[in-house]
């Protein structure tokens, strides 16, 4: 154990080790990280909250890390004290770019795999990303204390993947602490120290940027060249914006101000800016005066891939939703939105997300932290629609789909990796085929486990693909995907009409072969969800003016409570008052009353909601 930690700005690069942990969601990364903090003496046991690194409630509940942080830990090996910077990486498919920036801040990666489950697609994708970044990998099997652990079997698998000897795979238990000290030793021994030019103008890469209510934006950087010092002016090279460096320091595990950060060091900056957009992940920080001329490579603007309309169930909550999005945006550079109006749902926002998890997280935070009840419309990807007159329209919402003769439509495509036990190959192929997938290749990781690579239209993945995959493989398959360009496809817009009135919330863009199935499904759902009215209500699904599916809600004939309640008039009145309340939650589509619950249930991808709405 090293009590005399090295001082920031005075640590030679050869005593620094920058690393991250690549792991699947529930493979025990946070527990291992906690254990490292404790063993290195950075956090004492009493003060340790479980899973120290995950700060947000949602992360803690879902067991995933959304926002990465970096902790500086001292570690002594053979009388020499080293400085270890553990950079936490986000653990989900939607945050690939953020992961890539975290990896770029490291020289080494601990590949952490649950000894009872083996590697998952997500981890594999990040492993490949780490290998592309030339990171040194230390393979580690975690949870070896579990009775179900099969360390030998999965050591083989890991060795096969990274090309090492199965005997080189470390075995630890974050829970009991077994093997963690050895792992820390190996981190010092195996991971290279950072290399940079101490005399060059400062260049530091932003790998995370977090909004803090009290301090404004806290920016996490890895210094590549030169040195950053407090009070100097810095420049963000992508925007040329300059800021004063109010504070600079390291996290250990609380922020500790420092005299500066030198080559290879990892720490935080505070400039007083209020919006993470002014301090973007991947950007290069340099000195405002005599700064660098060439930024570090790899910066990308975040690009929303999935769009969905978010509407408050109670229309009067619209201003709260707007303020809430404005607040979330401060901490989420990838979140984009603009006001949108739906005839059926009222006032809301069209929101762009990196992917489905991002959508779910944002929605959940809005509901939880701002006490909002929301409806989200069917997620849509970004289509480029070219008309016969060669005009091209970008469509993120079916309502923007142009009228007129369409020459071609392109849709985004992803490259997906699926890992699963080999017995499920058939069902996975069937599923991917039904989702217009294209098999690129397949490799056995071991006789029992297979890696399948597909290109799939993104639109097919945003619609319950992961759930279908899980159910077809009894939960064993894992999935990762990354954007892989566009393709043209035979796509059409399907509208849903109630008594001849288009219900914009139910319009969607689908492949022509699936239009009929969508129409039948939606018309059937609505028939079950919309209560009978005083008149007959036809439900139609149509492509343009061509009706492809039709259902009818028959007129209601009896609603009277013809039960004998004796003298319990209060009950009768209360039942009626309840109907009055229910009526407030009705939206009018033309002259048809549609309960809010029907929208929610029809838009949800899970069948049980239909049952709930009927109650």
């Amino acid at each position: 154990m090293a009590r005399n930690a090295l001082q920031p700005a005075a640590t030679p690069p050869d005593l620094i080790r920058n690393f991250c942990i690549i792991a699947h969601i529930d493979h025990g990364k946070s527990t291992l990280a906690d254990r490292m903090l404790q063993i290195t003496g950075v956090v004492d046991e009493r003060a340790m909250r479980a899973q120290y690194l995950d700060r947000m409630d949602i992360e803690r509940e879902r067991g995933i890390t959304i926002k990465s942080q970096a902790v500086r830990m001292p570690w002594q090996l053979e009388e020499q004290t080293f400085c270890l910077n553990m950079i936490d990486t986000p653990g989900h498919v939607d945050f690939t770019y953020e992961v890539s920036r975290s990896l770029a801040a490291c020289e080494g990666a601990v590949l952490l795999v649950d000894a009872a489950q083996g590697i998952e697609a997500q981890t594999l994708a990040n492993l490949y990303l780490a290998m592309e970044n030339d990171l040194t990998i230390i393979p580690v099997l975690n949870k070896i204390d579990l009775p179900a652990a099969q360390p030998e079997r999965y050591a083989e698998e890991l060795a096969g993947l990274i090309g090492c000897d199965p005997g080189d795979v470390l075995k630890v238990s974050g829970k009991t602490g077994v093997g963690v000290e050895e792992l820390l030793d190996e981190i010092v021994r195996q991971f290279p120290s950072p290399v940079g030019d101490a005399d060059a103008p400062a260049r530091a890469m932003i790998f995370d940027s977090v909004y803090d209510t009290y301090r404004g934006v806290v920016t996490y950087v890895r210094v590549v060249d030169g040195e950053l010092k407090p009070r100097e002016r810095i420049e963000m090279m992508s925007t040329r914006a300059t800021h004063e460096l109010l504070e600079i320091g390291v996290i250990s595990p609380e922020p500790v101000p420092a005299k500066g950060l030198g080559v290879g060091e990892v720490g935080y900056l505070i400039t007083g800016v209020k919006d993470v957009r002014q301090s973007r992940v991947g950007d290069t920080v340099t000195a405002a005066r005599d700064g660098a001329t060439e930024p570090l490579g790899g910066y990308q603007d975040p690009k929303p891939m999935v769009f969905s309309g978010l509407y408050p169930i109670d229309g009067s909550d619209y201003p709260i939703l707007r303020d809430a999005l404005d607040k979330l945006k401060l901490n989420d550079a990838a979140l984009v939105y603009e006001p949108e109006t739906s005839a059926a749902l009222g006032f809301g926002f069209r929101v762009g997300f990196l992917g489905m998890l991002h959508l779910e997280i944002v929605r959940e935070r809005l509901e939880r932290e701002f006490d909002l009840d929301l409806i989200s419309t069917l997620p849509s990807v970004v289509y480029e629609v070219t008309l016969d007159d060669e005009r091209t329209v970008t469509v993120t919402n079916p309502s923007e789909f142009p009228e007129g003769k369409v020459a071609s439509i392109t849709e985004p495509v992803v490259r997906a990796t699926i890992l699963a036990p080999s017995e499920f190959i058939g069902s996975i192929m069937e599923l991917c085929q039904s989702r217009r997938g294209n098999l690129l290749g397949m490799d056995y990781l071991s006789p029992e486990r297979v890696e399948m690579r597909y290109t799939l239209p993104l639109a097919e993945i945003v619609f319950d693909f992961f759930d279908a995959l899980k159910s077809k493989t009894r939960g064993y398959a894992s999935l990762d995907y990354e954007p892989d360009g566009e393709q043209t496809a035979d796509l059409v817009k399907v509208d849903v009409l109630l008594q001849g009135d288009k219900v914009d919330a139910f319009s969607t863009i689908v492949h022509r072969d699936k239009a009929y199935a969508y129409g039948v499904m939606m018309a059937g759902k609505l028939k079950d969800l919309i209560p009978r009215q005083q008149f007959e209500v036809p439900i139609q699904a149509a492509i343009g003016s061509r009706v492809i599916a039709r259902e009818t809600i028959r007129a209601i004939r009896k609603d009277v409570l013809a039960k004998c309640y004796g003298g319990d008039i209060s009950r009768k009145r209360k039942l009626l008052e309840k109907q009055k309340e229910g009526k407030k939650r009705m939206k009018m589509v033309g002259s048809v009353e549609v309960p809010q619950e029907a929208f929610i249930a029809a838009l949800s991808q899970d069948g049980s909601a239909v049952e709930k709405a009927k109650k």
Partner: protein
Amino acid sequence: MPVDGALPAHTATSLSTRQFGIYLHVPFCRVRCGYCDFNTYTLAELGPHGAGVSSYADAALAELALARDVIERTGAAVPQVSTVFVGGGTPTMLAAADLNRMLAGIRDAFGLLPGAEVTTEANPDTITPEVAKTLTAGGFTRISLGMQSSVPHVLRTLERTHDPAGVARAVQAVRDAGLQVSLDLIYGTPGETHDDWRRSIDDAIALAPDHLSAYALVVEEGTKLAAQVRRGQVRMPDDDDEANKYELAETALAAAGFEWYEISNWSRTTDGRCRHNESYWRGDNWWGIGPGAHSHIGGVRWWNVKHPAAYANRVLAGDSPGAGRELLTPDQTYDETVLLGVRLAEGLPLTHLDDTGRAAIPALVADGLLDQSAAAAPAPAARLTLRGRLLADTVVRRLLGW
């Protein structure tokens, strides 16, 4: 709910102007039927320490004394009773002598108006010529028999144990004793076909009752039937089944000379109407005696504790058995006037409606829900058409502007 059951002084006005009735609840049954969510108990449920069936009349008499006392303290003259209705449960689980003793208690406490209507519900199996004669002697004028259906498999689903053939014998006994007869039917039981219902209606008409009630079966949470529906053991008929059956009943009853006077009630003559029932829809006053019974006096609605033992403890200690009450606001009173009044065949006088209500009339007439001639009569009223009777809740909501 005040411990002594005291009523606000303002109820005195209503007590001296509106007719006054007594509802007497008898919360006992031999077995509980699968669909029933009424406040009733079998002997097994009550157990050895429960309020005994035999001592029930004593508890009811204690509440009658309390009722008289509470009414006196409002300052109103003690009203004589226009209607008495003994319901359940199964009132005839009590000996006819006990029923008579309670009726005598009502007479002693309040007095019966000349020509008062005095009804008891009865299970057809429990009515013998002797019982009927005893009740007549005690002052009863009317018996309402729980026929429900004449089709054995429907009765089985409802878990009614009476023998369909026994209904005719009971009707005969009641009529021989000089009492009016009413029959209760239930439609929309799972498994009941259109023909089953026709047979029940035809059989009921053939018995020539003075009065007939037909109620739709409502599956209530907590009943055995609800559990069976949830488990998929029985299937509820589709939404239109009840509408079809109601229309069938109306057609058959009208052809047999019955006229509807309330959505679920028909009678052959004006005299055959259940005046006690009508008083509910007209917003009159009544005191509900017994466990779980509901009362209404001058805009105050209250309800008693449900369990017979708790009830007996309260009333025998001289306390009110009231479990809770509501003092209706003017808005609630108005809502109830519309909700209740519109259900009557005589219609709701348009003078009882506010501007919103009156403004809704033309569209309701145009939609075929309200009767055009009644709306245009010299004393115009909102009177439901046959279609309107089935959609009465819609009519009420539209009259209230909801």
